[in-house]
């Protein structure tokens, strides 16, 4: 089952839910399927572990990437480059907005309201049930409501990203799938796709899932590890 996302896709969720990792990997997945893709990093909250880390690989694949200007890359200043609004006005066939964590990170979206006015978009909430605050359906709903309030936009789907990074097991994936299916059932929000680390993909029975699966090649790694090839 392929991921068929197109148009403007806004990736939101709590801190550390995996938004940036998913944005990068989704961009590559769709680019390899032959469509034109751009990614904008609009995380204004956190200067660590950002999309900029994968910049070279994305550029080599011909994926457009919008980041704050170079000289401000290491500043913890909330810089929203005008290029983002420009991209929304003239989007690629798939345009991914990688938003900062929690309601604080999502606040930036209200600043893009003019650019987004009249555009159709999908806002997807990334959920990792192995993270604090989103380990219950109630917690996920609270996160959803807070993000919607801060952004003044509505979440239209969810992405399951169950993982414990290097300690992810097959059971973590199955358990996480069951959890996000439950969230999807209770909220009525479609489960757009789930993720599986490339390290585990041959051990997983994909037939268990009734949604597409995005294979993740881990990019955001600490300095003593190597990022996977995209």
């Amino acid at each position, binding site marked *: 089952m392929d991921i068929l996302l197109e148009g403007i896709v806004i990736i939101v969720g709590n801190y*550390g839910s995996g938004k940036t990792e998913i944005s990068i990997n989704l961009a590559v997945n769709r680019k390899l399927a032959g469509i034109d893709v751009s990614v904008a990093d609009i995380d204004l909250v956190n*200067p660590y572990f950002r999309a900029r880390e994968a910049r070279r690989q994305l550029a080599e694949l011909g994926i457009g990437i919008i980041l704050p200007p170079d000289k401000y890359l290491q500043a913890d200043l909330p810089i929203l480059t005008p290029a983002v609004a420009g991209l929304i006005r003239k989007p690629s066939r798939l345009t991914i907005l990688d938003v900062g964590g929690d309601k604080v990170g999502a606040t930036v979206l209200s600043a893009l309201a003019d650019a987004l006015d009249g555009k159709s978009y999908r806002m997807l909430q990334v959920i990792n049930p192995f993270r604090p605050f989103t380990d219950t359906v109630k917690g996920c709903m609270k996160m959803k409501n807070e993000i919607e309030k801060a952004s003044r936009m509505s979440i239209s789907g969810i992405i399951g990203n169950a993982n414990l990074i290097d*300690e992810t097991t097959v059971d973590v994936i199955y358990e996480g799938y069951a959890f996000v299916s439950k969230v999807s059932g209770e909220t009525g929000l479609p489960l757009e796709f789930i993720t599986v680390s490339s390290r585990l993909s041959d051990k997983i029975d994909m037939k268990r899932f009734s949604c597409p699966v995005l294979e993740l090649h881990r990019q955001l790694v600490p*300095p003593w590890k190597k990022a996977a090839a995209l």
Partner: protein
Amino acid sequence: MGKILMKGNEAIGEAGIRAGCLNYFAYPITPQSEVAEYLSHRMPEVGGVFLQGESEVAVGYMIFGAAACGERVFTTSSSPGISLMSEAISYIAGAQCPAVFVNIMRGGPGLGGILPSQADYFQATKGGGHGDYRLLVMAPASVQEAVEMVMMAFPLAEKYRNPVMILGDGLIGQMMEPVEFPENLKSEPSKKDDWATNGMDTRKSKKRNLVKSLFLDPVKLNENNLILKEKYERMKREEVRFEPYNTDSDYRILIVSYGTMSRVCRTAIDNLKAEGIDVGMIRPQTLFPFPEDAVFQAASKKSCGMALSIEMSMGQMVEDVERCVHGKCPVKWYGKCGGEVPTPEEIMDVVRSNLS
């Protein structure tokens, strides 16, 4: 409950709660603000107190006040914030109160930058504030170890009636790793009736307690300093922690490195081993007390021709390494402290260039 995926800063906050500490006062600063963010949600859930001070100076004295009252209390900050708290830390040590301080270091001096650094080594291990005091300093190299050290810090602070510092860096605070909170590290707060100002009606003894660091009588002040000195000597005997790595091999170079930097060194050591080059490492888990004997013994090994202090500072720890190696072999330093973490390849090059 199994493992969960936590950012270092969140895990440090949760570890405080699991250690039975329900008082957290802080002021936000990158790269540790998520501790405050996390505890602003969590403290109310467990009936604890999260209070943001108007500055780090204020926070330091809020910690002193709560500690003097016999409460378990902690704070977290990053380098410039710890500088502001240093006066209070000196008062707390002088008045012999237990408290836990977490420093998620960023680059300095001054405002410096917001990326990882280990440039507060001197501040943590040799002073920061004024007077003859020491902190018991623990340096985690993973999110799990940060959890365990925070949980251990509270009973240790009470054992010595002295502040304990957890010295991490921006990467320890910001990176995500799976963690669990070991039940066996939970501890009951110690009895404090004999010294704390915890209220006359809460205890049997009618003796009034006075918590102070002011001793105008020079004999009394000297006595207070001798009490402190005896505690620090006891820490040196009882609290040294370190992890040796690849020290069973016939290494020609010994690395001494801690925290995030030691994890890069570990990868470099593994890669060099695959090339047939053995390098040993002593990773201090306590920076004060420093693993003096372990470093001396490791540097005394026949095969060892050099010790390398690898740190994200401009040679602060190398002074301790030199002192402990005690002339057994030459000691060199390698490091960076702008916020870039040296890569495994850089460390491998440093090792190779020192072998040729």
